[in-house]
């Protein structure tokens, strides 16, 4: 396999963007990436997208979106793994370049969530329809059950959950592209309305519109396009049983553990080498479970990481310097690419007030559903 680098990125602000359609969002991000790399062609396009069908009634978005960026004719494929669609699209692009089949591949993600669809219903399609959704459980409900199991096993408290939101909003307040560019207090989080106990409104990532795109090429060609390419050191993916009831321990995210182990193996590094990470904090409990599954903290120690500052900017391993899904926003199909862009910019010293000084190796972890799929990428300065 060839070594692969990211040479450019494109991403607009996330938010409730009523003025922009699915195709507008995609074009803004993709053209920004193309113009930044100063390229005039692509060999392939991958678009991470959970449910354009459910959200805006549009399927077959590969050719539609290729045409919108004047790339009709280029192979363009939509990749779906629920909220991990973006990470899965990046992984497809990575292997296409690594294999030698293509030299310039656009990996992107897009979701248009605020066009009037019943968002809770569409998102619930990523749960097991026969065993979970049938009985009236929601996505926040599934993560709430993970939270309850984590509380039982490790003594995690509602305050521990709230600290994750407080920390990520602090980070997001520094991110010009964040949906909620403001801080929240512990009292505000703990006093927000219940969604599915113990999870409250401010433990949950928002409904967002957004898109993100990166361009990949072989590492040995990357300096034609940029003097600061970022290398993809490792890519790992895994699945776990879809229904939460079928997982041996509901407090553990097995797909994340396995995906991480595979990414670490390919990269030839372990968790101790990771200097910053973007993890899938769709709900506050998810960040706690994910940093444990990634080995950034020991199993059961994730609960203290936000409060102690370990995972805050300035801490040992800053997590979600972008603001995470919580503050930056979570247009589900775009999230995996947006995570990669945060690491890309950090490793190029372009993260402004959020910059982690001297960062050389970073990780992005994307997750689908209640954790049935996960994709992990490890990036390094080239």
């Amino acid at each position, binding site marked *: 396999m060839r070594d692969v680098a990211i040479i450019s990125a494109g991403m607009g602000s996330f938010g409730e963007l009523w003025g922009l359609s699915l195709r507008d969002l995609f074009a803004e991000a993709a053209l920004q990436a193309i113009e930044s790399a100063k390229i005039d062609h692509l060999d392939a396009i991958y678009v991470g997208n959970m449910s354009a069908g459910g959200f805006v009634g549009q399927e077959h978005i590969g050719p539609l979106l290729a045409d919108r960026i004047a790339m009709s004719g280029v192979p363009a494929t939509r990749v779906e793994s629920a909220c991990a669609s973006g990470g899965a699209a990046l992984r497809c692009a990575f292997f296409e370049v690594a294999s030698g089949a293509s030299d310039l591949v656009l990996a992107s993600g897009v979701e248009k969530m605020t066009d009037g669809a019943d968002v809770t219903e569409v998102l619930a399609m990523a749960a097991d329809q026969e065993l979970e959704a049938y009985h009236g459980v929601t996505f926040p409900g599934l993560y709430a*059950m993970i939270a309850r*199991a984590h509380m039982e096993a490790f003594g995690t408290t509602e305050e521990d959950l709230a600290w994750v939101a407080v920390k990520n909003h602090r980070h997001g307040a520094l991110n010009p592209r964040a949906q909620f560019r403001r801080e929240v207090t512990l009292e505000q989080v703990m006093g927000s309305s219940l969604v599915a106990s113990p*999870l409250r409104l401010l433990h949950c990532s928002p409904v967002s519109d957004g898109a993100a795109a990166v361009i990949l090429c072989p590492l040995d060609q990357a300096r034609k396009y940029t003097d600061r390419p970022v290398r993809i050191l490792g890519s790992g993916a895994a699945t776990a049983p879809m229904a939460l009831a079928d997982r041996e321990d509901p407090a553990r995210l097995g797909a994340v553990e396995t995906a991480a182990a595979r990414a670490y193996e390919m990269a030839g590094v372990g968790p101790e080498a990771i200097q910053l990470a973007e993890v899938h904090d769709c709900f506050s409990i998810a960040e706690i479970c994910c940093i444990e599954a990634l080995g950034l903290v020991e199993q059961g120690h994730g609960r203290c990481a936000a409060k102690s500052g370990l995972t805050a900017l300035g801490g040992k391993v800053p997590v979600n310097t972008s603001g995470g899904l919580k503050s930056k926003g979570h247009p589900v199909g775009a999230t995996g690419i947006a995570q990669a862009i945060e690491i890309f910019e950090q490793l190029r010293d372009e993260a402004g007030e959020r910059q982690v000084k001297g960062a050389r190796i970073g990780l992005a972890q994307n997750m689908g559903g209640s954790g049935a799929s996960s994709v992990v990428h490890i990036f390094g300065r080239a």
Partner: protein
Amino acid sequence: MPSPRYWREVPSRLRLEGSKCTACGKVSYPARRRCPACRSADSEPVALSRTGRVVTSTVIHVAPADFTMEAPYAMAIVETPERARLMVQVVDCDPASVRPGTAVALEFRRIRKEGRSGILCYGYKGVPLD
């Protein structure tokens, strides 16, 4: 829900039938062709007991459209004595009282009503034993 699907799911949904792996003993619910634990293709049908214990739980405050009239309601993953696990609503109690360890009976109930013209969907709900 299309009625063929509803009919198709009768063995698991209405009779609580699963499968037990004859190689390693793992119980799957609903039944599977291959054991998810050891991949053996040999299994026998097993009917689940109508009791169980809560593994983990939540109280849903923001409910899907078909369930808004019932909110807040408790949901739980319940493990039966056969070690099968299933997701159920837990009813006829204070929802906040449903916690890991709570013992429940599994009772045949109406689960949802699909609008004015859809079918009535049945299945099992948990009811605390104490």
